Each structure stands twice: as C-alpha cells, then as structure tokens.
C-alpha cells in the first residue's frame, strides 16, 4: 500500500462509506480480498484497475446487489452488510446509481423513468412529478425529450437520462459504473464536468468505476486501485499523489498508459 493510505485515516464523522476487510467471492472463487478504504463526504472516489479485475463487482457490493463473503460495508453509522431489508431499503433511497448501459426501464418514457422514484417515495402530485422530472432531464441536457422512449434516443442520451434518474431523489451518494464507456471524447468530458458540478453544487459524494485516465485526473480526489494478479487493492488515495509518489510498478504503468515500467504491448504502438 502507498504511504498516502495512512494519511487519510478519517475522523469518523467525515466518513461516508467505510469498507472494512471485504472479500468478494463467487461461490468458492475469491475475486478480491483485503479491501479496506474510506470514502469521505464530498469525495469523488475512483475505483480503478485493469479490465476484469472486479471493479464493477466491487460497485455491486457497495450498492447491495451482492453481499461480501467476509468483512463489512458501513454507511455513516449504519452497518449496511448487517442491516435488515427495511434499513437497507431506506439507505438505498439515498443512493443514485448510473449503470453502464443506462439501464432505463424500456417500457417507460424518460419522464416516467425519472418520475418513478419520485412517485414511489415522495408525496408529490403527478403534475409536480412531471415538472421535477422535466427539470432533472434539462439538467442533463435532455429538455424536450420527456415523452421519448429509451429505444428512441442514442446511447449517450440514454446514459444522461440514466443520470437524471439517478439524481431524481437528490441522492447523497452517486455511483457511476464506467460513465464514459461508449461516449465520444467531448460527451465524456461534458459528463466529467457534470460530475464535478454535482459534487460542488449538490454536495453529493460520488463513486466512479472507470479506467479512463483523462477522467480520473480531471475529477478524482481519492481512489482505490485494484489488481487482478494479487487479488487485492495495491494502492489508495489521491490519484495525483499516486502518479507523483507511488513506487509500485503496476500503479505507475496503469497511470502512465504503460509508458513507464516497460510494458511490452505498448512498445508496438
């Protein structure tokens, strides 16, 4: 682990998400073990690592779609791993998740997609819900698309609509699974700006799974680095510090696109 990791032992009231000794496993196959990190309130926290190392699986653990084999995940002062279904459900309502493909409900229009959580968890009237939904859609640049079905808009727009839905209930924590996958460089940049805006203006904590270096260095102020080979985290902390100070070859290679540390595949290019 990098020296940075020790600096960020948090004062507990600052911590939003605490991951303690988590092991992720499919049956008897251990994917990752010994995961320990803290996401502080207002962080933009990156989960990074090579393809197939378990980044998205870690995200699934954080949002309760999968339970850790051992260890625990704590939100604020609630132990998410040990909580009963009702506590969990209440906690889940404070999260927003943007899935890799957007995961909009295909049988509903964009306004209905964004409005569904509002209808389920608030006392707003249908008219108010529509207004709020239109507002959230205009925040992501989809004004006027309220009555479109997900299949009628492009992939990038679906992703933005998914973000509007994730923001519907003004969540405290937003999770992004590979937000820039499938987006052109400009859209991806705009999404990064949007993420920063959300953190600064809504005060949301943001957790992003990505391996886009440009994004990472634009938005992140904290991160964890997963390594598929050793099946654990090999670094954590601010990626800028990692780039500046990390002595781990694997981390350096990742953060410099293989230009340091003699990556054989890179030399062909």
């Amino acid at each position, binding site marked *: 682990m990098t020296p940075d990791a020790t600096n960020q032992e948090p004062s507990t009231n600052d911590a939003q998400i605490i991951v303690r000794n988590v092991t992720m496993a499919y049956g008897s196959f251990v994917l990752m073990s010994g995961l320990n990190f803290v996401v502080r309130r207002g962080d933009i926290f990156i989960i990074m690592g090579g393809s197939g190392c378990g980044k998205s699986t870690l995200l699934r653990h954080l949002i309760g779609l999968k339970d850790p084999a051992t260890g625990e995940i704590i939100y604020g002062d609630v132990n998410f791993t040990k909580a009963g279904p009702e506590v969990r459900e209440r906690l889940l309502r404070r999260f927003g998740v943007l*899935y890799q493909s957007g*995961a909009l409900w295909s049988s509903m229009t964009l306004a209905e997609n964004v409005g569904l*959580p509002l209808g*389920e968890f608030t006392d707003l009237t249908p008219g108010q819900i529509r207004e709020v939904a239109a507002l959230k859609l205009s925040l992501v640049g989809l004004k006027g698309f309220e009555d479109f079905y997900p299949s009628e808009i492009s992939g990038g727009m679906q992703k933005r609509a998914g973000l509007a*839905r994730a923001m519907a209930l003004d969540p405290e924590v937003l999770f992004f699974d590979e937000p820039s996958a499938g987006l052109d460089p400009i859209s991806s940049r705009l999404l990064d700006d949007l993420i920063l805006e959300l953190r600064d203006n809504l005060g949301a904590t943001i957790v992003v799974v990505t391996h886009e270096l440009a994004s990472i260095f634009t938005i992140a102020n904290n991160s964890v680095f997963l390594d598929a080979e050793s099946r654990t985290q090999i670094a954590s902390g601010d990626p800028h510090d990692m780039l500046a100070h990390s002595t781990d070859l694997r981390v350096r290679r990742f953060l410099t696109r293989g230009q340091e540390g003699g990556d054989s595949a890179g030399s062909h290019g």
Partner: protein
Amino acid sequence: MAMLAMMQLLRRRGRANTELMAVNSQAIARQGTVSFRRADGTLIVGLAGPWHLGKDVPSASVLSKELSSGTPPRRLSFDTAQLTHWDSGLISFLTQASEICRTRGIAEDREGLPHGLRRLVELAEAVPEKKGARSAGLKVSFLARVGNASISSGLAISEFLGFVGELTVALGKFVRGKARYRKIDLMEAIEQCGADAVGIVSLIAFLVGVILAFMGAVQLSQFGASIYVADLVGIGMVRDMGAMMTAIIMSGRTGAAFAAKLGTMKVTQEIDALTTMGISPLEFLVLPRTLALILMMPLLCVFADLVGILGGMFVGVGMLDLSVTNYVRETISTLTLVNLFGGMIKATVYGALIAIAGCLRGFQCGNSSSAVGDAATRAVVMSIVMVVVACGVFAVVFNFLGI
C-alpha cells in the same frame, strides 16, 4: 496497441501485394504450394504462389510428415522468393510450423520471411498461452457430474420455494394495499393475458371441441346414442380440457413472454436499477403479471369451454343430425355448477403456475442474449410440466372429494 500494429501491417501488406499482382499477373500459380529442400542439416521450406485463407492451402501436417521422413534437420528456414500473396492462411501455417519445431527441438530461422509476416507471427506468439485457460473442456467424471447435478437441483428447489414464498408475501402486501407497483402495468398485463389471447384460445378450443365430438361420435353412433356426444364434449371441456388447453396456450404465449421480458431486463440491468432504487422487482414486475394471469385465466377458461361446446355442436348438428335445441338441452342437463367451478379453480391455479415459471426463469436468466432465449424455453417447459402435474393432482383430489 497490438491490434493497431496488426492492422497497419495488414494494410501495408495489402498494398505491396497489389503491386506484385500487377507484375506477375500472368505467371502466378492458382494456389499456394509448399516445397522442401535440404542443405547440410537445414530444411528449407519453399513457399510459393498466393496463400489465401480458404483457398485450399497446404496444412502444417505436410511439414511434420517431411520431418518424420529422413534424418531430422537441425534448422528450419524459409524461402519466399516465389510467394506472391499471403494472408492469415500463411500465418496460421507458420505458427503451427513453429509449434512443430518447438516440440521437435529444431531451431527456426525466420530471416527468409517477409518483414510484415514475421512481425505478425511474433505478435501471435507474444502472449504465452494462459495456464488453465483450456481446462474448461476437461472431462468430468461420472460421479462428479451426478454430484453436481444433485447439488444444483437441490439449489433449484430451494430457489423455487424461496421465489414462491416471496411472491406470497408480495401478494399479501397487495391485499393490504401496500404493494408497490404501477396500475398501468397491471392493466397492460391484463390486456396481454386476457383480451389479446382470446383469438388463439377460441381457435384451439373450437378445434378441441370438434376433436372430442368426433372421438365420441364414432363410438356412440354405433349404439344409436349420438346425443351423448353433447355430454362428452360438455363435461370434457368444462371439467378439464378448457382449463388445460388454455393453460398450454398461455404457457407458450404469455409464460415465454414473461421470461423473455424479465430476462432482457436482467441483461440490461433494469432489474438492478429497480433494486438499488429500493423498489422490489418482485412487487413491481412479478406481482402485476401474476395477478393478471390469475384473474384472466378463469375467464379465458370459461370462454374456451363455451367455444369448445360450440365446436362439439358444429359436429353434432352437421354430422350426426342432432338439432341445436336438443344438443343445447342435453349439454345444460349434464353440466353442473360444480363442474364449472372445478374448471375455473384449475384454471386459476394453472395461471399462478405459469406466472411463477415465467417470472422465475426470467429472473434466473444469465447475462447474454442467448440466455434470454434459454430462459424463455425453460419457462415454457417448466410451466407445461407443472400444469400437467397439477392436472394429475386435481384429478386425484377431485376424485377423492367425489366431484
């Protein structure tokens, strides 16, 4: 990186070849050939003509045959002066040749190969084969397979029971008015399993009525008792066939549709999106579908009974010279309300079974498009099996109760 390099090489190679083609267009051979020459311990492999994938180029077994005959050489080199054209066909030959050289301990000299070709062969060998990557195809012993199958069927049963239990809880919530679902979804599901199914159900029910009538007519008319065709068709349709045929149609029509729809939602993470929003997919997706089937199946069943009786009457009046009045009076006199309600109860239960099978298989769907197809197939098989088993159970129970 590697892909890019490969594409560049292929493009460069393509250009060179068109030039070559232009020069040699008269003299080129029709297909790639390989020849062998020996010079003091070295086997020189001569590659000539155009080597195209799929154009019947020599396989690497020629090389191993050549190596086996005569004294084994110490080195292997290539002569490509006559080579006019090449693509992946030649690369595949060369990688196999390298493999043969490695296993036989023969040194390989690739100097004679064109530059691009050499680079591609090196690229193919750059990343060593991952250990264990091939183990998926390994044979599993008979006992292990039996064991795995038993474990997974045990898990399947507990999964099924868990699902039924959760669905029961959701139904309880629905009764107390606490379930979270959209009314419009329920209405859509009702339309899909009710009104939309009327056409196919009436066609099948009518034909089943006709078939029953024919079956009875042949035997009964021998005794001059053709009027009893009405009894046969009436009781047959109302007690069993109406519910059964409707159930089988709905398994194929609606059960499969449920599984495919939920399976697709699983693949596109729409179900995950519901869960993480704190909305139970079971209440939101399964409950309306199950309710719709439970509500619509008895209605469809009564409708099928009626159409089936019409089918029987069509045969009775058309072929057996019975009058419509007589046929109807005979049918009414033989049918009891108990028969009718028995059929409707069966239909309700079948409806629940079809919904459970469809939705469970949809939820269990894997993460690919082929898994969605599998889920739909498995849903139909499972629901038809469950319907037939339930039908048998009903027969025993009704018999026991004297209905």
